[in-house]
């Protein structure tokens, strides 16, 4: 009888994939006394490598850079608020945790350990534009480095992609 309290860590990045993973948890896994943590990994490198940054001649202009970071911070704030809303509408008393890490995967694993998660739920791909692999680098990292079982949620859209083969 799975009546003991479980701590569930769901890795999110704002992509549809992670939303699907969250939805799968809500629809199929959810139990009354779960403690849910939505763990969002902020990847600082992505800002610096973004086209916007590379395209500007004022690459090392403090103001331009500051502005980009502010915009990114706003975006992230909205994303976290959206996830807070998701939790509310699903009626889940969970926590949104945002971690900074050079490597999102390691950030998520570490955060999951901190909250003593008994399982990590992750989608297959995130925000990356290149769709060359069926698994993203973050889910791959988590799969290889997590100390607890990992639930890999294949996105339905990926399903069509793999069916085409």
């Amino acid at each position, binding site marked *: *009888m*799975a009546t*003991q309290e*479980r701590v569930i860590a769901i890795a999110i990045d704002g992509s549809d994939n992670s939303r699907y993973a969250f*939805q*799968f948890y809500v*629809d*199929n*896994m*959810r*139990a009354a006394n779960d403690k849910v943590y939505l763990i969002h990994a902020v990847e600082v490198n992505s800002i610096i490598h973004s086209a916007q940054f590379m395209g500007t001649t004022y690459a090392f202009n403090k103001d331009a850079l500051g502005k980009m970071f502010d915009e990114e911070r706003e975006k992230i704030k909205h994303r976290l608020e959206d996830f807070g809303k998701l939790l509310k509408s699903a009626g889940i008393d969970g926590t949104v945790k945002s971690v900074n890490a050079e490597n999102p995967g390691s950030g998520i694993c570490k955060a999951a350990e901190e909250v003593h998660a*008994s*399982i990590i739920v992750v989608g297959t791909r995130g925000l990356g534009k290149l769709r060359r692999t*069926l*698994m993203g680098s973050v889910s791959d990292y988590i*799969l*290889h*480095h*997590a*100390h*607890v*079982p*990992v*639930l*890999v*949620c*294949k996105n339905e859209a990926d*399903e069509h992609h*793999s*069916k085409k083969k």
Partner: protein
Amino acid sequence: MAAEGNERIVLIAMDGSEYSDYAFEWFWTHFHKDNDRVILLHVPEYHTVVQSPMVMADVTVITEMMQEEERRIKQFLEGLGQKLKDKKVGGKVKSVGGNPGEVICKVANEEGAHLIVTGTRGMGKLRRTFIGSISDYVIHHSHVPVLVCRHKDHHEQQKH
């Protein structure tokens, strides 16, 4: 999408290794719900028998070895059936031959499984990777979510 009260069909890949046993136990302790239907799938591999060097000698030797293998598999399947009985869970035990990764995905499809549960590694002797080839295959080819249960001893290995 199954709501909380609906039946979930869960396929657990069992190959007799401690890894799949661990996956089953973990699933049971942390994950299962009362109205789950559990399918324990075993994919027997006969080619290991035929590859042994002794086989070159005699046809009767091959048949004996295969019969021995059949017996072991039958025992294993009965053990699995007993596991389900002990846990009082609805479900079945299936044994399907073929390429394990493909069989697992195919059966999951046929049975309409909502979830596949695997351990990280199986019976293989070479322990070079964190994830065995079969669980790796299943993760990449499954059409439904896959729960990969990392065995405890991996934790020790990773503490470097």
